[in-house]
C-alpha cells in the first residue's frame, strides 16, 4: 500500500510539474507585466519598472524563472512554502490563506445539496424510466446544463432576493400562488410515488390538499414574517423524519430501528428547553459542534439499547434521525433570532442580500446574528451553484442505476423474494454509489473552477477575485498560486477517487500482490 501510494504521489508530482510549467510559460509569454508602464510618461515609471523587475525576477527568461518559482514551492518540504510575491509586494500565501476558506464556504453547502438532490432525483427518474417524470427530469437536467450561471444569478437576485424581500413586507401568500404550488406539489408527488392509476390519483389529491393546507397556514399566520418551529412542530416533524428515515434506511418492518428513531424524536422534544438554555448561556461554534457530537453519541447508545441483534442498521437509523432533528433544533434557534435580525438597522427589513459574503454593519458580537447573516448571504450563491451542478448528478445516477438494475444479481434478489425497498436500497443503490463516488470526488475539484464566475457575480472575495486580479494585472505569481491550489486539489481528488473506489468495491485492488 505504501509503495503504491509512493508511486502514485510521484506520478502526481510529475503531472503537477508539467502542467504548471506549461501554464507558467503560456501566461508569461502571452502578457507583459510592464506593458502599462512602458509607454507611461510618469517620471517614476522607470523606477517602478526597475523595482518590479527586481522583485519579480522579470529579467530572467520565463522557463528559467519558472524554476525560481518552483524552488519556493519546494519549500513545502522544509515548512516554508513560498508562492512568491504579488505585484504589490504581498506574499501570495497570505492572499491565498484568506481566499481559500471563503471559496470553500461558498461551494461546500452547494455541493452537498446538489449531490443529495441529484442522486435522489436520479434514482426516482431511473425507477420510473420512460415515465413523464423521467422525461421531465431529463429535460430539467439538460436545461440546467445549458444555463450560464451568471444569467441564473441575475434572475435569482431579481426574483428570489428582491421579490422575497418585497414579499416580507406583507407576508401573506396570494391565492393563485397557493393553488398553483399545491397543484405542482400534487403532480410531483404523484409522479414520484407512482403506481396504479387510482393510487396516483389518491396521492395527487392528498399531496395537493396537504400543501394547500400548509401554505394557507403559513400565509394566515404570517409565518415568513416571524418564522419559528417551537417544540410541538419539532416533535411533529421529528416523528415524520423518524418514519421516513427508517423506511429508507431499514424498512418499517425493522421494529427496533423504528422505536429507536421515534425515541430520538421524543428525546428531541424533552431536551428542547434545556437546549434553549444552553444556546442562550454559551453560544458559539464550539458548543454547536459539541452538541452535534453529543447528539450522535446519545443516538448511538439509544440505537444500541433498542437493538437485540444486528445493531448496526438500528444505530445508523437512529443517528441519521437524531442528526436531522438536531438540525431542526438549530434552525429553530436561528429562526427565533429572525425578527431582531431583520429589523436591526444593518438589515432594515430586507434580509435576503444580493451581493457580498457578510454584512459589515452588523453587530458581530452576537453569534446567532452572524450565523444567520452568513446563511442569508450563502442563500443565493448556493441555490445558483446547486441548480447548475445537480443536473449532472441526475444524469449520472440515473444512468448508473439503470445499468445496475439490468444486472443478474438484481433479478436474483427479486427472485428470492426480497422486498422492493431492499432490492433497490441494498442491492442496487449501493452498487450505483461506486461509480458515483468517483464522479463526485473529481467533480468537486472542477466546481472550485466554476466558483470563479459565481464569486464574481455575487461579489465574494475568494479565489475567483484573486484570479481576476492576477489575469488583468499580469500577476504571474498570483495566477500560479490560484492554479496550484485548484489543480493540486484536482489531482488529489483523482487519487482519492481511486482509493475510494477500491475501498468500496472489493473486486478492485489497487495494490497488486
Amino acid at each position, binding site marked *: 500500500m505504501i509503495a503504491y501510494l509512493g508511486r502514485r504521489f510521484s506520478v502526481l508530482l510529475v503531472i503537477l510539474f508539467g*502542467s504548471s510549467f506549461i501554464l507558467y510559460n503560456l501566461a508569461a509569454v502571452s502578457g507583459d507585466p510592464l506593458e502599462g508602464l512602458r509607454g507611461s510618461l510618469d517620471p517614476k515609471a522607470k523606477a517602478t519598472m526597475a523595482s518590479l523587475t527586481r522583485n519579480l525576477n522579470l529579467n530572467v527568461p520565463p522557463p528559467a524563472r519558472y524554476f525560481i518559482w518552483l524552488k519556493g514551492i519546494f519549500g513545502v518540504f522544509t515548512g516554508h512554502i513560498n508562492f512568491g510575491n504579488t505585484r504589490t509586494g504581498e506574499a501570495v500565501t497570505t492572499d491565498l490563506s484568506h481566499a481559500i476558506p471563503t471559496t470553500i464556504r461558498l461551494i461546500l453547502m452547494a455541493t452537498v445539496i446538489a449531490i443529495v438532490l441529484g442522486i435522489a432525483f436520479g434514482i426516482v427518474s431511473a425507477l420510473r424510466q420512460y415515465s413523464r417524470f423521467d422525461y421531465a427530469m431529463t429535460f430539467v437536467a439538460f436545461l440546467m446544463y*445549458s444555463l450560464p450561471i451568471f444569467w441564473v444569478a*441575475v434572475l435569482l437576485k431579481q426574483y428570489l432576493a*428582491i421579490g422575497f424581500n418585497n414579499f416580507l413586507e406583507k407576508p401573506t401568500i396570494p391565492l393563485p400562488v397557493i393553488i398553483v404550488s399545491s397543484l405542482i406539489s400534487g403532480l410531483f408527488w404523484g409522479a414520484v410515488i407512482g403506481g396504479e392509476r387510482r393510487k396516483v390519483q389518491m396521492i395527487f389529491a392528498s399531496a395537493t390538499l396537504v400543501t394547500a393546507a400548509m401554505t394557507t397556514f403559513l400565509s394566515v399566520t404570517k409565518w415568513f414574517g416571524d418564522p419559528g418551529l417551537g417544540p410541538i412542530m419539532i416533535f411533529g416533524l421529528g416523528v415524520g423524519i423518524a418514519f421516513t428515515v427508517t423506511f429508507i434506511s431499514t424498512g418499517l418492518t425493522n421494529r427496533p430501528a423504528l422505536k429507536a428513531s421515534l425515541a430520538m424524536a421524543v428525546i428531541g422534544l424533552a431536551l428542547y428547553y434545556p437546549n434553549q438554555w444552553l444556546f442562550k448561556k454559551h453560544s458559539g461554534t464550539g458548543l454547536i459542534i459539541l452538541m452535534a457530537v453529543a447528539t450522535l453519541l446519545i443516538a448511538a447508545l439509544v440505537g444500541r439499547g433498542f437493538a437485540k441483534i444486528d445493531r448496526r442498521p438500528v444505530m445508523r437509523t437512529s443517528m441519521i434521525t437524531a442528526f436531522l432533528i438536531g438540525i431542526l433544533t438549530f434552525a429553530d434557534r436561528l429562526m427565533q433570532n429572525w425578527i431582531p435580525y431583520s429589523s436591526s438597522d444593518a438589515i432594515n427589513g430586507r434580509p435576503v442580500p444580493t451581493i457580498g459574503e457578510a454584512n459589515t454593519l452588523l453587530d458581530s458580537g452576537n453569534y446567532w446574528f452572524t450565523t444567520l447573516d452568513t446563511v442569508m448571504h450563502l442563500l443565493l450563491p448556493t441555490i445558483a451553484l446547486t441548480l447548475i451542478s445537480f443536473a449532472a448528478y441526475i444524469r449520472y445516477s440515473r444512468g448508473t442505476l439503470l445499468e445496475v438494475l439490468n444486472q443478474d444479481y438484481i433479478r436474483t434478489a427479486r427472485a428470492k423474494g426480497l422486498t422492493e425497498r431492499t432490492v433497490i436500497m441494498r442491492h442496487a443503490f449501493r452498487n450505483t454509489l461506486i461509480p458515483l463516488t468517483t464522479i463526485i470526488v473529481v467533480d468537486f475539484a472542477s466546481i472550485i*473552477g466554476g466558483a470563479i*464566475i459565481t464569486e*464574481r457575480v455575487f461579489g465574494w472575495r475568494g479565489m475567483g477575485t484573486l484570479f*481576476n486580479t492576477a489575469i488583468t494585472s499580469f500577476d504571474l505569481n498570483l495566477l500560479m498560486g490560484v492554479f496550484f491550489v485548484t*489543480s493540486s486539489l484536482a489531482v488529489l481528488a483523482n487519487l482519492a477517487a481511486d482509493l475510494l473506489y477500491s475501498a468500496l468495491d472489493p473486486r478492485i485492488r489497487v495494490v497488486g500482490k
Partner: protein
Amino acid sequence: MFGRKRKSVEQDIATPVDISTKEVEGLSQGQLVRRRFFRHRGAVISMIILSAVIIFVFSALDEKLGPFKYHGWWKYKFTDQPDLSGAGCPNGILGCPTLHVIPSFLGGKHFGMGEHPFGQDDIGRDYFSLVMRGAQRSLLVMFIIGAVGGIIGTVIGAISGFYRGWIDAVLMRFTDFIITIPTIIIGSVVGYHFGNLGVTFLAFYLGLFAWTGLSRLVRGEFLTLREREFVDAARVAGAGDRRIIFKHILPNAMGVIIVSVTLIMSGAILLETALSYLGFGVVAPDVSLGLLISNYQDSFTTRPWLFWYPGLFIVMIALSVNFIGDGLRDAFDPRQRRRISRKERSANSKSGGN
C-alpha cells in the same frame, strides 16, 4: 423459433425478441444509427431548432466573405446608432422592444417585429442586430472550438492508441498536463491575451486546449479496436499504418468522436459566454452573447429585455446541442435497444404472443 420468426414478417410487431431481431435485419451501421437518432424526439426537435436558429441568425445581417458580399434581411447593422425611440413604452423608458408575438385575434396587439423587436440599448443601437451578431459570434466560436478540438483530439488519441509504447506514454502525459489545468483558467489566460485578435483567433486558441477528454476516449477506442481481427486481416492484406488507421479503425471509432465533439461544442458555447462575461473573451467593438449579458446585467430592473434576449439565445443553442449530443449517444450505443412501449406490449399480449 422458426414459426415465430415467420410471424414477425407477417405481423408488424409480435414479441420483444422479434422487435430486436427485426431491428438488425439487413441494415447497415449508418442506417441503424440514423434510425435510432430519428427516434429520439428531443434530438430531432433540437436539430430543427438549431438549424433554424443558425439560418435565422446568419442571414439577418450583412456579411462579407472575401469578395462576396451578402445583404442581410434586417435593416440595421449592429454598429448603427439610430435615435432612441420611446414610442409605446411604459413609464417613459426609452428603447423598449417592439416585438409582438400574440396575434390580434388572441387579444394581443398584432403579430410583428416592429422597428426594434428586441429594443434598443442605452446609446440607441438596435438590440436585435446586436443579439444576432452576438449569436453569430457564439456559434462561430462553438464550431471552431469543436472542429479544432475534435481534430487534435482525434489525431493525438489515434496515434497514441495505435502505436502505444513510448509515443503513447509521452502523448498521454502531455494530455494529463493539459487536463489538470482547469478549463476556465487556461481559457482566461488565452482569452485575455488573444481576445483582441478577433473571434476566429480566440476560438482557434481555445480549441487548442479543448481536446483532452476526447483524445483519451479515442485512445481507449483505438487500443481495443487495433486488436480486432479485421485489423489483422487488413495488415495481412498488406495495408499500411495510415490506411489501417483511416480506413479501418477510424470509421469504427466515429461514434465516440461525434458524440464527444458535440459535448465539446456544448461546453464551448458556455465557456465562450463565461469568458466574455468575465471580460476575458470577445472584446468590444465586437459583441458576443456573454458580453451583452455582462454589459447590461445592472440594467435588469429598468430594461430587462437587454438581459433576457441574449440569455434566451444562449440557452436555446446550448440546450439543442446538448439534446443532439444525447440523441447521438443513444444512437451510437450498441447496447441501446428500442424500448418497447406499453402500448405495443399490451397490443402484443392481446394478440396472443408472449
